[in-house]
């Protein structure tokens, strides 16, 4: 996969910038320009909103059979995190042994390398999570 298509989303990936609907106050991540609840009433009212990065493990798994870009990391922990704003994010949990993960565990986001383009290509960065 080539990197430029990911770079477009760097502000969100690096700093957890999502959107908040000024109509219903709902928070969304990644950014979207139409609120699924308010639809046309939300047009022009979806404003940038930075998540705190704090949340709890909602579900998780240990990946043993990854996509080729992730082979060197395996086995790794994938999780769905419920952020304190209520929105859920999918990301890896690092700096933690697999046996110690549980649903409800407190985590925070951390800036990490996500992968690279091809075998010796350009690095892409983004969020992962670690225990608090």
């Amino acid at each position, binding site marked *: 996969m080539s990197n430029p298509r990911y770079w477009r989303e760097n502000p969100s990936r690096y700093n957890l910038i999502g959107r908040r609907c000024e109509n219903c106050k709902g928070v969304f991540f990644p950014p979207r320009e139409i609120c699924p609840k308010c639809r046309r009433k939300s047009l022009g009212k979806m404003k940038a909103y930075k998540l705190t990065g704090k949340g709890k493990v909602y*579900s998780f*798994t240990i990946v043993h*059979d*990854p996509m080729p870009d992730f082979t060197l990391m395996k086995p790794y922990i*994938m999780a*769905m995190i419920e952020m304190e704003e209520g929105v859920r994010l999918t990301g890896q949990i690092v700096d933690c042994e697999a046996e110690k993960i549980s*649903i409800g565990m407190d985590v925070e986001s951390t800036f990490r390398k996500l992968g690279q383009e091809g075998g010796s290509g350009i690095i892409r960065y983004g969020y992962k999570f670690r225990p608090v």
Partner: protein
Amino acid sequence: MRDVAIIGVGDTKFGELWEHSIRDIGMQAGLSAVSDANIAGEQIEALYIGNMAAGSLIEQEHLGALVSDYSGLSALHIPAVRIEAAGASGGMALREGYIAVASGMHDIVMVAGAEKMTDVTDEEIPTIQMAGGDQQWEGISGSTMASLFAMMARRHMHEYGTTRENIASVPVKNHKNGAMNPNAQYQKGITMDTVLKSPMVADPLGVFDCAPISDGAAAVILAPLDIAKKYSEQPIKIVASAAATDTLALQHRESLTRIDSIKVASRNAYKTAGIGPKEIDVAEVHDSYSIAEIISIEDLGFFEKGKGGPATLEGMTEINGVVSVNTSGGLKARGDPMGATGVAQAVEIARQLRGKGEKRQVNNAEYGLSLNMGGTGGTSVVHIYRRL
């Protein structure tokens, strides 16, 4: 809208078909459906092809023209189009064919599903499957399709006390059924122990919880019900066709233990058919991962939420159980050539309702249902069928 019937069905064996290209298998399934329907090729007015990923798998797009051409129909210049909705491509193609006949636009159409997956290495498959989810926000972080279903499984275990044995009973049952299907990829029973001890793919799901990589094709011929008897002694009426969508990414769903596209599509289908889930005798559901069958049989209304696992372990979904689920072997044992799967489900239901299920025949089956799903439930397509 006119009533629509299936007047012919055909399929290839599913599996690793090294010696056959997508042209061969598409043609083979189509030809056997045409012959089953007792029609001549030139009576086909339009072609709908379900295919998920030929561009990534064999660097070939434009499958409408390809299949039409290699089915010997090029000189007839009929319209042909490829339909894509990830794993639900076949079911969605069936729906498009159904709409064309129901609307009166066409009389006789062919719906075929085909996928050739073994021309790429196994390592490339997770990326291609993940294209049915959200590559930009799930895939980039290392999520595989298996990992997303694993997180659904863990949540189902957490919320409802579903056990690992409950989940493992799905592939055990489906392999038992597949052993009675001469076209299945795996025609061999397995034990609970085999599933539980299989190498991990995404904890808690192991190799035997995941549908295999398969080549295969399936086809059905549709016609208006009022002329169906002219061609087929046993036409099967499609009494409802419904499709629904949901968020592309799993992370945006309200619940991980419920698939709303299944709930909405099946609710609409039952309403059109004028029946409820209790009337269904035989169902083909989308067990791309074992947990998906458990969630599906709950959201289709066969069992209460949280009871799908115990129901499967207790044998309620075995052949001639409360409802016979995945008599073909399902995606797990029959095989899962992605775009072909939805059409293969219709083929199996038609066989069951015609009483041609051989060793796996469900007694006195009158109503059948198929559920074909894309990704983690971004798309669900439900059809209900009735014996005449």
